[in-house]
């Protein structure tokens, strides 16, 4: 059974006195396996937050089905299994971290005795020890984000839905959050998060889905997407003259006294390497250059972007 399954999700917004329709989601289909980290990628305005709000019952889909662990997302049973961190979370600034977590626990009917220990453990887990009685108006952005994660975890959910969790965090905060999310996967949690910070996504996710203009344009395991996407092969060599190298392979570049040869396929690698060695050259490296998640993302986006933005920059 899938942790989260979205089938044919459609959503339109109306404006201008209900006359004009904006199609935000045009039939989203995606599924998240249990125990995996799923990165939900897309540019601003692609429909990431709208999809997440539909999952969390804050928006009502026009069409489609959302299942959490096989149950419709709007049911109490399904909602009890999800922990949610909204984008740029805001909490009651007149409360302390501890008070907010007690309030969150009260919304799950959790027994008071168990809640006390759980709150202490969570405060420690998200790195807020020593700040638990500080009013939230004095919290930094990073501290709010940590607290947001703690309140999402208060009922020990199976599935965590995080909307742009890295947004606004400094490099240390991002690293801490990555470590925390990875440790949650170790505990068997499923994590579904949206982001446009591709570096962070690439470092953690098992699978990704790219949403563009309200539809999933590509979905799959990150390892498969990247390994199936070798762009070219690179041979780096030294101790050989430019003249000799030009006879072997005319396309090369010179960098810091070394030469870099680019080959479109692996068919000619052996021949080129042998020729370089034959001319007393030294092979420094032979490596396939794979596409990064960023390359995959921009390739997907290319047809949707205006030509003036300059993809090659």
């Amino acid at each position, binding site marked *: 059974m899938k942790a989260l399954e979205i089938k044919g999700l459609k959503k339109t917004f109306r404006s201008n006195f209900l006359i004009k329709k904006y199609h935000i989601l045009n039939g989203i289909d995606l599924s998240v396996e249990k125990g995996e980290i799923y990165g939900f990628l897309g540019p601003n305005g692609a429909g990431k937050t709208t999809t997440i*709000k539909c999952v969390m*019952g804050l928006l009502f889909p026009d069409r489609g089905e959302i299942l959490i662990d096989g149950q419709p997302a709007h049911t109490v*049973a399904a*909602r009890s299994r999800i922990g949610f961190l909204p984008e740029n*979370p805001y909490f009651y600034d007149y409360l302390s971290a501890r008070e907010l977590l007690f309030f969150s626990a*009260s919304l799950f009917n959790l027994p008071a005795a168990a809640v006390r220990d759980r709150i202490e453990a969570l405060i420690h887990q998200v790195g807020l020890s020593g700040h638990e009685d500080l009013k939230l108006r004095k919290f930094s952005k990073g501290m709010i984000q940590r607290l947001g994660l703690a*309140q999402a975890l208060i009922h020990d959910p199976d599935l965590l839905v995080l909307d742009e969790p890295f947004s606004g965090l400094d490099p240390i905060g991002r690293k801490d959050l990555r470590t925390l999310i990875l440790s949650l996967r170790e505990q068997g949690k499923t994590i579904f998060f949206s982001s446009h910070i591709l570096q962070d996504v690439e470092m953690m996710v098992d699978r990704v889905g790219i949403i563009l203009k309200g539809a999933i344009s590509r979905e799959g395991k990150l390892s498969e997407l990247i390994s199936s996407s070798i762009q070219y092969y690179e041979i780096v060599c030294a101790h050989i003259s430019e003249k000799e190298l030009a006879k072997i392979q005319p396309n090369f570049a010179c960098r810091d006294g070394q030469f870099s040869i680019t080959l479109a396929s692996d068919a000619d690698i052996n021949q080129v390497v042998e020729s370089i060695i034959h001319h007393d050259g030294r092979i420094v490296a032979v490596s396939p250059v794979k596409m990064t998640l960023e390359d995959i993302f921009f390739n997907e986006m290319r047809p949707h972007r205006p030509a003036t933005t300059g993809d090659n920059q």
Partner: protein
Amino acid sequence: MKLKIMGIAVNTFREAARNKIFYLLVFFGILFALSSKLVSFLTLGDSIRVLKDTGLAAINFFCVLIAIFTGINLVYKEIEKKTVFNILSKPVSRDQFIIGKFLGLALSMLTALAAMAVIFFLFVAWSGGGFDLRIVLYFFMLFLELLIIVAISLFFSSFTTPILSFVFTVSLYLIGHIMWTFNEFKTVLRSPLWRYFTQGLYYLLPNLDKFNIKNEVVLNTVFNPWTILFSVLYALAYILALLAVTILVFRRREFQ
């Protein structure tokens, strides 16, 4: 379910209780009630009666102000600052949210009114007046009126902006105190259509004058217990109907 509603109610009360403007209005309510002593010095006749008359009017005014302010502000802030996301994304129904908010606001009103009432009683006793059980009844009726005002402001703030909510709530409050004029229309209007229309409004809009028993309290006249009982039932029915409509509206609300 009860724990969830209580959680939201307690948090709403806590928000009101930690709001400086709430304290300021309670403070001014007490200050104006106490300043009625000055008015009693300047007036001829029974000074205790004048003190009660102006003191109760001051408490009434500031309590209504608190009810409108907190009723509109607290719900709007939940939506505007998106704290409502953290509640509705949990296994909490929208019905529970509205009921919890209303109970929290009711608790806030009770606290504000109780604080003003206790100080007012002490002040009357210090000024030479005895304990008057009728004033307790006055505060009880005022509390019912405040609950209706809170329910009205909750209804408007569930779908519109604070400024419009304020305008609508204040308008209904003012109309609610001149509802008798709607009843007079049936003798003046010739067109049956207009007569039905004004009669419809008479039954639809809140008749808040039912809860104003200040004259009976101050002038020491006899109460009709059936009128009081009818007013209590009217308040309960009106609040339940308003909450039901608010819930229906809020169930359809989307949070973009």
